[in-house]
């Protein structure tokens, strides 16, 4: 790692930031979230805190701009330079600028958050099925008001879950009209406009009036980009027109013909040869979170690293499961010290630990076979397998009061009463000899202390060292097409919620049957958590929904009261 000459750094730990404006590429809430997560990357490993200001001057002023955007370092159109930031200090120092000629996403194509509809603002799910046809973008099909919409599950025909996509016909951002929708036609300098325009501006942002006359009312807002809109060219914001004619040939999709840089483009009218209206087709885009985390590194005092895997390496590359590189951690801690509290560096595996003796209880179940315990001692099997380096786990659950993290035949434990980090790894097969390597979900019955394990379409029940199973989950009343149970949460004494995909079922433990009235949609019963959580469990009075490296914690009033990293908050790395 490298710091700036003179080790420039903030002289206070409570750093403030302010988002000056937004990109039309993503919903403002997604942008705010990306910035907040980017700051958290650094606050997780230092004593720094980041507070957002909504007016006045903050230490780190964040803005989007194009080309010449008010500092001596102009951006260069799409690709090339993505962003820059200044090292800590007064004035422009500490500020971060993002090139709005880039297509900002979460790194994997359009990130489309819906509004209205019946999906509580969920993200669009692409592709989705509508009337038997697959859609990879928002569509206006099925509507007479020309509003683009999308399904928020993979099958609208089945689930009927939908929301509206960004459109100037629905809302604007910025400006002075409080997000009101565009009014077409509107007059500007006595000319009539039927759509968003960049006229009257030098920064290239598309805008519209929110009344029928800008000349009279001076009310305006910026137009959000549709997911189908082209980037750059001379028709920014317009959708591709398919088919279109180019050099006399008909094209039904984006093409790189005519360009020597390999970029895909399309015409925004039916005939490029006649109209010459075009733009670049939407691509994967750049992850605003990753770029922001890098830029904020500069804003905190880190210069470029020469380690390719480090966040502070100057080149962009998308990584799905991001975690801060050791080099970045060492760099930022050189400037600001370590975070007080749990040690941010991975703990060394502890010496052999004795697991609590299982309490064999009699069971009404008739075991398929019984495995006699060979040992009641668990010991780390491979100290190099560090839980803190795992990005995701097959499942997380609480057994005997302690968190258990399962992954590929191994598990780690975290004691609920200590902050000493994870212990392990231990071998699953040593403690539960009948189980397969991959456990999709598990829970311990509060009453009988039996532990239920789910893997694929099967489940096992452990009573001490005795096993029942494997049995098919269909025997519990789950449908045949359910591939696996991804989450399980006990409710009361004898009910357990089982999660799979975007639905959940309620299992009656006594009857060993699914209650009637299920399945239900997770999104409708548990608002604010990811509908595609890959793990759900109950811990210390809260439900945890995990997706990727993050968890959403829900309290007993079904409010999400915390979103955090599994690694730091639960594993205590």
């Amino acid at each position, binding site marked *: 790692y490298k710091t*700036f*000459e003179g080790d420039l750094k903030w002289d206070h730990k409570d750093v403030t930031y302010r988002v000056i404006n937004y990109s039309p590429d993503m919903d403002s809430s997604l942008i705010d979230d990306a910035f907040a997560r980017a700051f958290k990357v650094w606050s997780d490993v230092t004593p720094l805190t980041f507070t957002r200001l909504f007016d006045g001057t903050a230490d780190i002023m964040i803005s989007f701009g194009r080309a010449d955007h008010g500092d001596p*370092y102009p*951006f*260069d*159109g*799409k*690709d*090339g*330079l*993505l*962003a*820059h*930031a200044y*090292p800590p200090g007064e004035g422009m120092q500490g500020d971060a600028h993002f*090139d709005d*000629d*880039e297509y900002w996403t979460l790194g994997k194509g359009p990130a489309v958050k819906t509004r209205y509809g019946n999906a509580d603002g969920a993200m669009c799910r692409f592709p989705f099925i509508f009337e038997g046809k697959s859609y990879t973008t928002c569509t206006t099909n099925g509507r007479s008001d020309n509003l683009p919409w999308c399904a928020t599950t993979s099958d609208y025909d089945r689930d009927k879950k939908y929301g509206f996509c960004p459109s100037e016909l629905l809302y604007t951002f910025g400006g002075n009209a409080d997000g009101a929708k565009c009014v077409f036609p509107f007059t500007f300098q006595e000319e009539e406009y039927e759509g968003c325009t960049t006229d009257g501006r030098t920064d290239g942002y598309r805008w519209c009036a929110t009344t029928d006359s800008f000349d009279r009312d001076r009310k305006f807002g910026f137009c959000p980009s549709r997911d189908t809109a082209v980037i*750059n*060219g*001379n028709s920014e914001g317009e959708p591709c027109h398919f088919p279109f004619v180019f*050099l006399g040939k008909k094209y039904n999709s984006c093409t790189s*013909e*005519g*360009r*020597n*840089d390999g970029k895909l*483009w399309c015409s925004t009218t039916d005939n490029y040869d006649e109209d*010459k209206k*075009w733009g670049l087709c939407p691509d994967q885009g*750049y992850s605003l979170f990753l*770029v922001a985390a*890098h*830029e904020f590194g*500069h804003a905190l005092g880190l*210069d*470029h690293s*020469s*380690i*390719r895997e480090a966040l502070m390496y*100057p*080149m*962009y590359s998308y990584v799905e499961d991001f975690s801060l590189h050791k080099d970045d951690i060492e760099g930022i801690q050189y400037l600001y010290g370590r975070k007080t509290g749990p040690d941010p560096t991975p703990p060394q595996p502890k010496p052999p630990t004795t697991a609590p003796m299982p309490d064999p209880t009699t069971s009404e179940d008739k075991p398929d076979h019984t495995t006699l315990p060979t040992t009641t001692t668990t010991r780390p099997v491979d100290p190099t397998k560090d839980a803190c380096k795992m990005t995701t786990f097959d499942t997380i659950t609480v057994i005997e009061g302690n968190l258990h993290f399962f992954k590929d035949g191994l598990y780690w434990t975290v004691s609920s009463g200590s902050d000493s980090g994870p212990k392990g790894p231990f071998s699953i097969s040593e403690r539960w000899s009948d189980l397969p390597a991959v456990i999709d979900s598990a829970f311990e019955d509060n009453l009988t202390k039996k532990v239920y394990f789910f893997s694929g379409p099967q489940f096992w029940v452990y009573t001490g060292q005795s096993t029942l199973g494997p049995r098919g989950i269909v025997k519990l009343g789950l449908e045949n097409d359910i591939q696996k149970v991804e989450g399980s949460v006990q409710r009361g004494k004898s009910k357990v919620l089982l999660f799979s995909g975007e639905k959940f079922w309620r299992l009656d433990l006594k009857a060993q049957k699914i209650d009637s009235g299920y399945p239900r949609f997770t999104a409708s019963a548990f608002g604010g958590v990811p509908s595609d959580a890959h793990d759900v469990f109950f811990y210390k009075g809260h439900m945890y929904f995990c997706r990727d490296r993050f968890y959403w914690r829900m309290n007993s009033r079904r409010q999400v009261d915390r979103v955090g990293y599994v690694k730091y908050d639960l594993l205590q790395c």
Partner: protein
Amino acid sequence: WSVPIKTINVTFPGDIIKNMTDMERAENYLKKFGYLDTLHRSGFQSMVSTSKALKKMQKQMGLEETGELDEATVEVMKRPRCGVPDVGN
């Protein structure tokens, strides 16, 4: 066998043209990111040689330090990146 397509390059209106030779791109890159610096000392302008600057850049980027504008170096120069200079501030 399909007939090879004859590629025709078109000048698109409003396109931000980045067509430049590899050497132009390299000089631009080395200057912009601080590898190729002009130093003013007592009115004498000295320029670090391009080869030396290339080596410095190749070292920073984890490339083989050839000091020559090889294919790998050109490719790296085309990749999206942060605008903060790598050398000097």
